[in-house]
């Protein structure tokens, strides 16, 4: 075939593939909002009390559970993941130990979430005799997120120019002071954008939630040791049990709320990162 003709055909084919990929996303987003947006923005739904048997139930405690779980998981995940990233990027010398740690991280990264869920259930419910609760889910989820979070944090740290560290240490600062005062602040925008993926995963994870946190509550959870019902797990439960007659509209509305939260996470973290890099460039 004439190479130029082949090139034109290939270009057309790549455009079609690209448009299909974008089309899938657009189709899903539009369908979710078309089906659930009206329910999602109705206060009696997103802040209302859930019903176990009757129709007309809301998802107020579930939305709170989701936000609570996200906050609690980040509280555990952030220091551990960033701490481990600091160790790998700033302190450790590349060698057998770091290679081994990276192998463990890669392995942990491919463990299916259902296996994490079953592990969490075995550890907290069977061995420690806890009941399903937010903290059990948060610890399990922090482990699930460790590889992804650590990798993005390490990348952010490595992007800080070496001259920054050299300047700080030539002034007599120790390595830890350098990390605390120079490297971490410069890496902050990168670390913040790195939270987008973990935040989305915690919010959308249902397997871990079903086995460690719970699928239905009437009251808003207060303590980390309270059972809760994050939205993603709850909508799975509602559609699989299908006891309430209006389960379809609950799932549609819940899906729309999850999508709105996802957009908010994307928007919010990007704005926060932009704010930090602006402050940095102003020398603040």
């Amino acid at each position, binding site marked *: 075939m004439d190479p130029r003709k082949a090139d034109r055909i290939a270009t057309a084919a790549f455009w079609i593939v690209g448009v299909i990929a974008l089309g899938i996303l657009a189709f899903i987003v539009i369908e979710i909002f078309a089906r659930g947006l009206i329910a999602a923005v109705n206060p009696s739904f997103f802040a209302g009390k859930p019903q176990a048997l009757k129709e007309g139930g809301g998802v107020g405690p579930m939305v709170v559970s989701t936000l609570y779980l996200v906050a609690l998981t980040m509280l555990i995940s952030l220091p551990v993941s960033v701490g481990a990233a600091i160790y790998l990027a700033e302190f450790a010398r590349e060698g057998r130990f770091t290679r081994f740690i990276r192998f463990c991280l890669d392995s942990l990264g491919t463990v299916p979430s259902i296996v994490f869920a079953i592990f969490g259930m075995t550890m907290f419910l069977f061995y420690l005799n806890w009941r399903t609760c937010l903290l059990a889910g948060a610890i399990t989820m922090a482990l699930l997120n460790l590889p992804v979070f650590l990798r993005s944090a390490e990348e952010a740290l490595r992007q800080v120019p070496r001259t920054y560290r050299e300047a700080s240490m030539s002034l007599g600062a120790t390595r830890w002071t350098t990390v605390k005062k120079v490297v971490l602040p410069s890496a902050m925008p990168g670390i913040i954008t790195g939270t987008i993926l973990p935040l989305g995963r915690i919010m959308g994870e249902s397997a871990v939630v079903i086995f460690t946190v719970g699928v239905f509550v009437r009251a808003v959870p207060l303590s980390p040791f309270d059972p809760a019902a994050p939205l993603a797990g709850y909508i799975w439960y509602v*559609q699989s049990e299908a006891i309430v007659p209006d389960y379809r509209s609950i799932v549609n509305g819940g899906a729309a709320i999850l999508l709105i939260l996802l957009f908010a996470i994307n928007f919010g973290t990007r704005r926060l990162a932009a704010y930090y890099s602006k402050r940095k460039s102003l020398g603040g």
Partner: protein
Amino acid sequence: MAREKPVRMLLMTCASLSFLAILLIFLFIFKESIPAITRIGIPNLFSAAWNPDKGQFGMLAFLVGTLLSTAGGLLIGAPLGIGTAVFLDQVAPARMGNLIRRGVELLAGIPSVVIGWFGLIILVPFIAGITNSAGYGIAAASIVLAVMVLPTITALAAETLGSLPPELKEASVAMGATRWQTIRKVLLPAGREGILVAVVLGMGRAIGETMAVQMVVGNSSQFTLNPFQPTGTLTSNLVTNMGEAVGNFRAALFAQALVLLILSMVLILCIRLITRRKEG
């Protein structure tokens, strides 16, 4: 310097948590599946007969379901993902490329229950309509998985293509090669390892995906090669039954979780082999 040591130890502990976690996961899952191995026996665990009420715990139907739906998902998702990566890296105008990049990131964040629900109310009725079946099964699971591996494969393949030295492309174009010739003969071969890793990681996601598959696969324990017949996967069976199972039933489920764990470890070893070959 003396004050650095505790900090260093603390940070090292954080890093070591990954080892502790993977060790604990293996130990717990293995320990709980020991009764299945001793009481049910490995040949029975891999048989095609699954009927917990009668004490039959063969996982073959689920294992085949997992492998078939993963293969199906990759068959659709890998070309689409690699094609999208080439498109946004080489063909698309900058703004279109950025739009797709952001779009794919967003797609990666859509919860799997939402995609599963989507499959349940749109895809399953659609398949039911055109094939005169119930619509549940490997075909539906494969399409859902294709959507879920698309962001993983696209992002990693695009990263590989973006990290290739620009001289490769420049030399090829300078020789008078068209864009398609450059992509096919220079860029894709040069990025082969990275793209292969992208597909293997996509495979990992497909094998482990639980909720979306559980919602469209039909949740039957029927062993079948017909893509339009309800069946199950390892993950869907776990999430459906783990809550109530006791005794041998529960041990058999843990054995299935162990198989999942081993499958994902095998993928990691594959990636190690691929990347080592590149370095060597």
